[in-house]
């Protein structure tokens, strides 16, 4: 161990100028003595991760916390990897600065990661029986496959009033949601229930018929998860919480860990409970975040976790936390800092009866080295998106050609929805591509329309079902699926018809012949398609066979093609794991030949294909947040934690809307096991807050230049402008300090 002075001396020696690499607020956080929890409220660009990374090393070296007693979590795997890397680099800096004791600090012994990763690791290491060899439902689509597989009772719920109660259908709707929407909604309901760690007995005791129906459906879901050794992300946390309550968990926990949590503003109630439990009687809990950047209410997060942290500390630990505010923004041009300060002082964010923002929070102070006299907040404000898009392209090209940026990836286009349709951002993405400016838009939900993707899916469909005979399916397919399938099969047939892929054509024909003549034993209850040697043929096996043929084999080596084909491969793997392991059941046709059984085909079409036919994102690189060499188009949610030299905020006409998210908060709150805020605002006001926070994040990503871009209609931009100013035309915007282009 070293004393604080030695640590600070060494820390100063890590900087080329010999000065502490921390400002006064950051140093205050570092020097916190941990008799109380630390409540670090850090605005955008104020160096919270930088501070936390030094803080962890100080906790080990100065305060004597063993490395294996440190739990340090953040929001994404990417951020966690960066955090661990930063800790390793900082430790080395201290060693190089002559602090030999730092050599004894073993970063890899710390529990650094996402909370999910931490839960998995501890439960695995502790061999917690309910989670041994448990398999994660990795994403929303897989969870939906699971709910379909288990035939959850909510899928049969035709009661419009039930769905309307949670704002999952309009109250006056004549119809309940269709099967796909019920599946999505069921997942949403179950996730929120787990994230709120609801008291099921209390919900049942309420006698409310809708809640009874919901708890029954939820219990079936939980029971099927357990039977099939599956978990969703929220249930993994619930398992961990339950483990901590066992004797083994109590032994592992002992008197608690030193817990540091980044991005605390996006914590949900069960996570809050976990963090306080992990801190245990040591009560050594540091939370860090920015309430103004809370974006994940729709995933069950509650900004109240951060805003009301002092009250939660009283409830859980009987202590008052020390609040430290990081307010020096070293990221953005002063005019951008001014803009975001003005913006967050929004009428929707003020309420004398409720804490809408963290108490005592100061304004951001501009501290960046970027401080030229140019207009850093600009606007491309036009009468149509097409004209605005054209101007945007010219500006990006000028910035690149004139050397103001080195790489297109220094520019980001941020918006609410990155779907490339006319109601969203198609005018912009189309214009950029036409101008020859490379674009990266992994969340366009367009992967399913890629010709390579379609052809591969079409090939698979042609193998299983040569004539697409929908009449023999046990039930009609969802509305748009048949046409999507026809498109896919056409894409495949078009490849064949070029005459350039005779191997592929021969493989298809030979395989169809093999299915027709497949072994079939009528005495068996079920017959599956087998290869020579008796191994089952699987969907994935067929997919890889197709990928071995041209043109797919060449597509696989191309960055865009490879990732699109991977998207299909990954969804198929998740589907297979739930539906017969991808094995293909056979039946005998009236004419005597073998063919794939109707239910196998039905599930393939109505569950698997239905799951992505109307939108599928590309897989995203685990290592890189930003694709080099391209203008990155992102949702505002996706841009969280990132920064760009130039940010275009597209179509700032987003209006607040009350959704199922807000309804669910209110419906589940009475049954949630959490420390509750004194008051809660109306759903309308919470929706308005969400919009303000969303645009606060978007604006605060910009370093050099922020450009509001879109078609201006009177009144449409008001909600996302400082002071909610009523803007009728470009001049009104100019009056707010926006430089018009």
């Amino acid at each position, binding site marked *: 161990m070293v004393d604080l002075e030695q640590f600070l001396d060494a820390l100063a020696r890590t900087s080329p100028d010999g000065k502490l690499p921390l400002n006064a607020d950051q140093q205050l956080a570092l020097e916190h003595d941990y008799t109380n929890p630390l409540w670090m409220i850090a605005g955008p660009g104020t160096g919270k991760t930088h501070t936390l990374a030094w803080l962890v090393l100080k906790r080990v070296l100065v305060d004597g916390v063993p490395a294996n007693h440190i739990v340090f979590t953040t929001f994404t795997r990417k951020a966690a990897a960066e955090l661990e890397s930063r800790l390793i680099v900082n430790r080395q800096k201290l060693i190089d600065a002559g602090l030999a004791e730092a050599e004894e600090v073993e970063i*890899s012994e710390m529990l650094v990661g996402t909370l999910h990763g931490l839960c998995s690791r501890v439960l695995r290491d502790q061999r917690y029986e309910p989670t041994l060899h448990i398999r994660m439902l990795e994403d929303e689509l897989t969870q939906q496959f699971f709910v379909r597989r288990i035939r959850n009772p909510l899928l049969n719920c035709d009661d419009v009033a039930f769905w309307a109660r949670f704002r999952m259908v309009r109250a006056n709707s004549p119809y309940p949601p269709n099967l796909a929407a019920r599946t999505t909604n069921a997942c949403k309901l179950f996730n929120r229930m787990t994230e709120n760690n609801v008291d099921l007995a209390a919900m049942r005791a309420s006698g409310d018929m809708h809640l009874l129906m919901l708890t029954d459906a939820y219990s079936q879901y939980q029971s099927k998860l357990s039977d099939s050794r599956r978990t969703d992300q929220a249930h993994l946390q619930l398992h961990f919480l339950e483990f901590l309550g066992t004797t083994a968990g109590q032994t592992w926990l002992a008197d608690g860990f030193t817990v540091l949590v980044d991005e605390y503003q996006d914590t949900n109630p069960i996570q809050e409970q976990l963090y306080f439990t992990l801190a245990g009687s040591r009560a050594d809990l540091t939370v860090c975040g920015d309430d103004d950047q809370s974006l994940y209410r729709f995933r069950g997060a509650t900004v109240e976790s951060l805003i009301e942290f002092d009250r939660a500390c009283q409830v859980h630990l009987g202590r008052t936390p020390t609040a430290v505010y990081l307010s020096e923004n070293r990221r953005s041009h002063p005019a951008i800092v001014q803009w975001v300060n003005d913006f967050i002082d929004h009428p929707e964010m003020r309420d004398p009866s409720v804490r809408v923002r963290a108490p005592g929070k100061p304004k951001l102070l501009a501290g960046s080295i970027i401080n030229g006299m140019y207009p850093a907040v600009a606007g491309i404000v036009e009468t149509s998106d097409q004209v605005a898009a054209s101007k945007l392209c010219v500006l990006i090209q000028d910035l690149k050609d*004139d050397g103001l940026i080195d790489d297109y990836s220094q520019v980001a286009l941020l918006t609410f929805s990155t779907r490339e349709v006319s109601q969203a951002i198609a005018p912009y993405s189309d214009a950029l591509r036409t101008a020859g400016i490379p674009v990266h838009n992994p969340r366009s939900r367009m992967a399913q329309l890629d010709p390579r993707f379609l052809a591969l899916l079409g090939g698979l469909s042609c193998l299983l079902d040569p004539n697409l005979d929908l009449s023999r399916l046990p039930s009609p397919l969802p509305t748009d699926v048949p046409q999507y399938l026809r498109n896919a099969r056409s894409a495949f047939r078009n490849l064949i018809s070029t005459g350039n892929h005779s191997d592929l054509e021969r493989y298809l024909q030979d395989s169809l012949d093999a299915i027709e003549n497949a072994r079939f034993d009528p005495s068996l209850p079920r017959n599956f398609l087998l290869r020579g040697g008796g191994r089952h043929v699987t969907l994935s096996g067929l997919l890889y066979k197709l990928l071995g043929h041209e043109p797919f084999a060449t597509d696989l080596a191309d960055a865009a093609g490879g990732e699109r084909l991977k998207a299909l491969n990954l969804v198929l793997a998740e589907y297979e794991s739930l539906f017969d392991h991808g094995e293909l059941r056979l039946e005998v046709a009236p004419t005597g030949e073998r063919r794939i059984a109707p239910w196998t085909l039905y599930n393939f079409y109505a569950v698997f294909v239905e799951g992505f036919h109307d939108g599928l994102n590309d897989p995203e690189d685990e290592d890189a947040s930003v694709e080099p060499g391209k203008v990155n188009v992102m949702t505002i949610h996706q841009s969280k934690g990132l920064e760009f030299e130039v940010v275009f905020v597209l179509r700032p006409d987003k209006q607040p809307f009350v959704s199922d998210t807000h309804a669910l908060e209110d419906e589940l709150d009475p049954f949630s096991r959490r420390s509750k805020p004194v008051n809660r605002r109306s759903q309308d006001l919470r929706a308005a807050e969400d919009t303000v926070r969303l645009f606060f994040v978007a604006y605060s990503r910009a370093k050099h230049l922020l450009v509001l871009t879109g078609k201006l209609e009177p009144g449409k931009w008001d909600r996302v402008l400082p002071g909610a100013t009523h803007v009728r035309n470009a001049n009104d915007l100019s009056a707010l300090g926006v430089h018009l*282009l």
Partner: protein
Amino acid sequence: MSFSDDLRNNGWSKPTQKNETLIRRFSTTGDILAFKRCQRQYGVFSVRGFSSATATQRYFGTLVHDVLDQVHRQYTTNPTLPDQPELAALVQQAHDRLIRSGIRPYNSRAQRELATKLIGRFLELIGPHFFPHVQQTEYHLQRALRTHTNRQYVLDGIVDVLSGAVAHDLELSFSTDEDDVEIWDYKSGRRPDKGSVELRDYEYQMQVYAELYLQQTGEYPARAVLVFLGELGDDQRYKDGNKRRGDYIQSLLYVFHPQRKVVEKAMQDFHETVELIEAEHTKPYADQWLPPTHTVEPQTCEACELRYKCASFPAGGKQRSEPL
């Protein structure tokens, strides 16, 4: 004057590139040996994240590991070894978990029976000398290290068993001490031939663990022991009622003593492989993770879904043209 000119003339400062270092984690089996076996297979499945069905092939090894781990945990609370019915029940429980988690073994009944037989014989022959010395199972070793070019990375490893002086208790034919610490690793198959790639890889894995253990504790483990449970399967002597432990040790256990020079050589190779993997990451997509120029073991290719079109496996062309 364009807006761009306006910016430049009014103090636009050239953006500086942020140089964040990403430090990756590497494990011996999951990364280094997988890459050395076939860089294409490693890159496509482990790095790019394509889904592979090879998990089903791990059924038997996982089953054996899980049961032995369970036996150890029970032993720590009640130091007796399970009898045959108890063992069969443990195997069944472990099997159920694997099946429910989606692992789909081929002919699982035969594999369960084999697992019960192998573990039962191991417990009978070695168990009483082994389990009292077990200190930890699934022992995590991890360290932040540097390659020869000063690149930082984190080395991850899990040793099946960290034990006291089992070899001493077994009265093996080399010098042992009752304070020895040993690292043991279970292999569910038969002992590979001397000089084979498989055995070389197993040794390599243990050399790396020895280095990790040194980094963590300041000294090498006294010895590394590989247990080839598959050797107990159809041994005629056992069937004939021969339960003399000494007769089986030779084939069942592969023991070696970590030597500084050998370990250092393994670590040098490890570092070089980390550099090769990192170099692949920097290449353009189309040039990344190409089929290796060295010969790939046929069983590696036969288990690989990419074999239908791969320069390392010419027979894949014929397989590709076969139906289904």
